[in-house]
């Protein structure tokens, strides 16, 4: 994985904590790991090894799980840090916006 997605993932997590109004700081450690500290849980996010089909590995309080995309990372982090969170599933409208 190149550097750009990791940097942007870090920035997204910074903005996400602010948007969700949850405590915590997002940092990058010298080995490139994204670390969320000072939050409800200890969270570390790394790019997955190249031989895996996943993009990221997310470790929450020592428990390591894979994430297929940044969207999945965001979901795992939110569930860990925001106890009141309930995901909404997108619905596609049946009524057309513009008749075809």
């Amino acid at each position, binding site marked *: 994985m*190149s550097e750009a*997605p990791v940097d*942007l993932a870090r920035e*997204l997590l910074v903005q996400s904590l602010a948007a969700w109004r949850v405590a915590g700081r997002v940092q990058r450690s010298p080995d490139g790991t994204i670390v969320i500290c000072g939050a409800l849980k200890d969270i570390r996010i790394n790019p997955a090894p190249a031989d895996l089909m996943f993009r990221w590995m997310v470790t929450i309080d020592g428990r390591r799980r894979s994430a297929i995309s940044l969207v999945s990372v965001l979901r795992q982090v939110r569930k860990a840090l925001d106890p009141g969170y309930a995901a*909404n599933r997108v619905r*596609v409208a049946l009524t*057309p916006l*513009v*008749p*075809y």
Partner: protein
Amino acid sequence: MRADVIPISILTGFLGSGKTTILRYLLRQPGFSRTAVIINEFGEVGLDHELVEASEDSFIELKTGCLCCKIRTDLAQTVQDLLRRRDAGNCSPFDRIVIETSGLADPAPILQTLMTDTSIAGRVVLGGVVTTVDTVTGATTLEREDISQKQVAVADRIVLTKLDLNRPAQPVLLRRLTELNAAAPVLSADRGRIDPQCLLSAGLSDPHARSHDVNSWLAEERHSHARHDADIQTYTVVRKEPIGAITLTLFLETLAEHCGADLLRLKGIVNIAESPDRPAVIHGVQHVFHAPAWLKRWPSDNRSSRIVFITRRVPQRWVEALLEAIGAEVADVSVAR
């Protein structure tokens, strides 16, 4: 548009803001003669329906609950019944439905019902949301009543009323309306009188109105630096580079997943990388999205993607970071392949 597809317009606005007065006037206009009316009154004794002259068989009063929370199923059933009666020739013919909400109704769930209910899918299109604002008490109401803010925020057209009592409208009110929804044109009604065409063109269903509406939303860009309300914010996310279809899909899904009811409305014109000459128009209410509609051409030389957000407590910086991060990840995966 298929001949049997009926546009449904929502007429909303806070209590006493002049919805019924406008409806009475509109129903007397030739352009509105073939209109079925659904009025939602909140309370034991409904009065509004007594004030509106409409054909009895194409007029329905929904009461004992508020459309947005208690009787949404009733609404879909009512629309379905109206269509069935129309098909069977058992009521006056109509080619438009207007729903007047109660003054306390949140229009977003009503829109969702109309967009997603399977019983009426394919038979109706959204004709737009018109919100009335009383120029005498409107500024105070907007300050005090969250639901009033939401009614303004989701509007396609805002109609100022009671100007005969308070002309011109207070600058503070106009400023507040711009803060809440800069994209919606603000019209004036003189004792209920208003040009019906102004309201008819509020629809997203009219192909002729479409480019006008797109331009109207995009006017929001000019106001993107306006002072934002603490809760409800309007802003525009602009991207000069085309956005991949997969990026857009993931972006919208994630917005819906994380924002839900706080994503009051989203409208945008998007330069899809896979379709550079035909921009996509996207539209969403809370976690419900329309499939993109494709314009035949760009409405102007500006080919940037511009997405107007009306949200409650969803920061612009988060939305921008989300789009950027997803775009980078999709690009990275594409390169890796």
